[in-house]
């Protein structure tokens, strides 16, 4: 647990199927940390060669696409947790790594956004999960969050 000026903050992380966002309680209010357009971050990752595009930019490229892997783009990677690997554009990728890419993107964009100051001292998170998520999938989700820096 990180501390800032003797204060530690535990954030809530809504890792959703479509969108994800972080929230924090400040005083007696809940602050939702959204992007510059006031919207949550899409849970989408697109791999381009050695690079990757995450969030709104990746989502915009697949405006009408549904859940799943579309070419090199993965929508709602949460569903793949617990699997050994996922074939994305001919490349076998770990679902934990894909989830980690989304979590890291949401974290960095939130901290650098207009309300990033509300997250000062945040080093731990309470993560929402579907009630149906079983033990191995929960463990995989925990590993993905622990890898986020």
């Amino acid at each position, binding site marked *: 647990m990180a501390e800032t000026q003797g204060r530690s903050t535990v954030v809530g992380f809504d890792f959703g199927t479509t969108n994800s966002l972080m929230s924090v309680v400040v005083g007696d*209010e809940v602050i939702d940390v959204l992007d510059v357009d006031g919207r949550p971050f899409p849970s989408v990752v697109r791999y381009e060669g050695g690079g990757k595009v995450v969030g709104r930019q990746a989502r915009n490229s697949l405006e009408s696409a549904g859940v799943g892997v579309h070419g090199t783009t993965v929508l709602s990677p949460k569903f793949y947790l617990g699997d050994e690997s996922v074939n994305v554009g001919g490349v076998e990728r770990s679902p934990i790594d894909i989830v980690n890419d989304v979590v890291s993107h949401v974290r960095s964009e939130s901290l650098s956004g207009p309300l990033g100051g509300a997250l000062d001292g945040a080093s731990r998170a309470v993560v929402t999960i579907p009630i149906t998520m079983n033990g191995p999938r929960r463990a995989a989700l925990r590993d993905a969050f622990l890898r986020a820096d």
Partner: protein
Amino acid sequence: MDSDDEVAVTTGQGEDLRLPDPSTGAKADNTAISAEVPQPAEGDTPAPSDRSVDAGGPERNAPQNAVDAVCLPPQSADPHAPEGHHGGEGPASTPARRWPDPSAFVAELYGNAGKKLELRKTDVDDLNQVLLERVDESGVRWREEVERCSQLDPDLSVPPRLLAAISRVGAERSRVGAFAGDVVRVAMHKNLTLATAQLGPPRRGDLTEAWIDRTVAHLADVDASVELTENTVTSLVLLLSVDERWSMDRSIRALARRIWVDKSKRSQRSIPLGLLAESRTHEQFGTIAGAFLTEVRQAQQAVSTAEDGTQQAIRRLEIAEAERDQVLSRQEVLEAQLEELKESITAVESDLRSERESHRVSSTHAENDFEVLRARVLRTIDEQTLMLDDALHAVRNGVTDVTEEFVERVIQVLRREADALRGR
């Protein structure tokens, strides 16, 4: 000397003792001892054979017979003899001497051991002449005579008598006085060496008060007689009083500390006050008492000075204690103030932390409200911009009723948003 003025301060043999006064060089008349010594009647002329011995005291302890057998005074020492024939050395015109040479003086001195020695001024002059005339050829002989005769005086009774007699006539610093000192030193060297086998010769300049104490300690170690000890101390004090020019007071204290006090303690009887009152030796007692009164006054003055110093120290201590109490009281007040300040600082720090947290919360809430508003307005603008874009497209295609409907919708939305911004 007036026999009425003598004080009963005895040496080991009851001999008279008169202390010299080096500061004045004058005779310390009548600081003598032995009231029981009979004195010749005034105007009496002692018989020739008695000239060197004035009314000898009780012949106690002295090996009188042995001394007489070896160290008889020469018959030729009679100054009233018709002509000088002492050894035949001097010219015929030389007046008759009481002693033809120093050895004769030594022989007579020890031949009358146990008796008080009385020297007159004429005797001193006589002996002075003898020493002047016969010093070269008699230097060895009289020393041998002293060594020989002193063996018959184991208690050293003669040296204090000789020094006392020299002192009475005030000849301590004359040639005769020096000669007497040398006689005493030779005798003491011989006897003390035999007695203790440790003591060196009490040569002129070697004597100190510490030397006296060391000598007394050695004599005590060998269980020497009281007489030997007292005569030794008396002789040494008399020698020191001349050699070191001791004051009368110092000499008296030295004798009192080493002889008189102990002797008084050893005495099993106290002297009746009436006997002291009838004493004819008030002058001597006065001299001794004066010395001790001086010492008492000095001690009282020292005590008074010490008491004054003590009082001053006590006053300084009281002042210092009062100052200390004031400082302690002030310290307590300051410590209480410090505690209050610390509590105030703690309270202020707590208030500051609360204020900072409150500010942070308020600031975060304000930022959040702004972002929510900004996002909503931005979304409204984007949506209405699309609506107006569609209306424009309809106008260009001649569908004015669609345009009218879209524009009315946009106007309604913008009015609601404006009202919302106004807080209605």
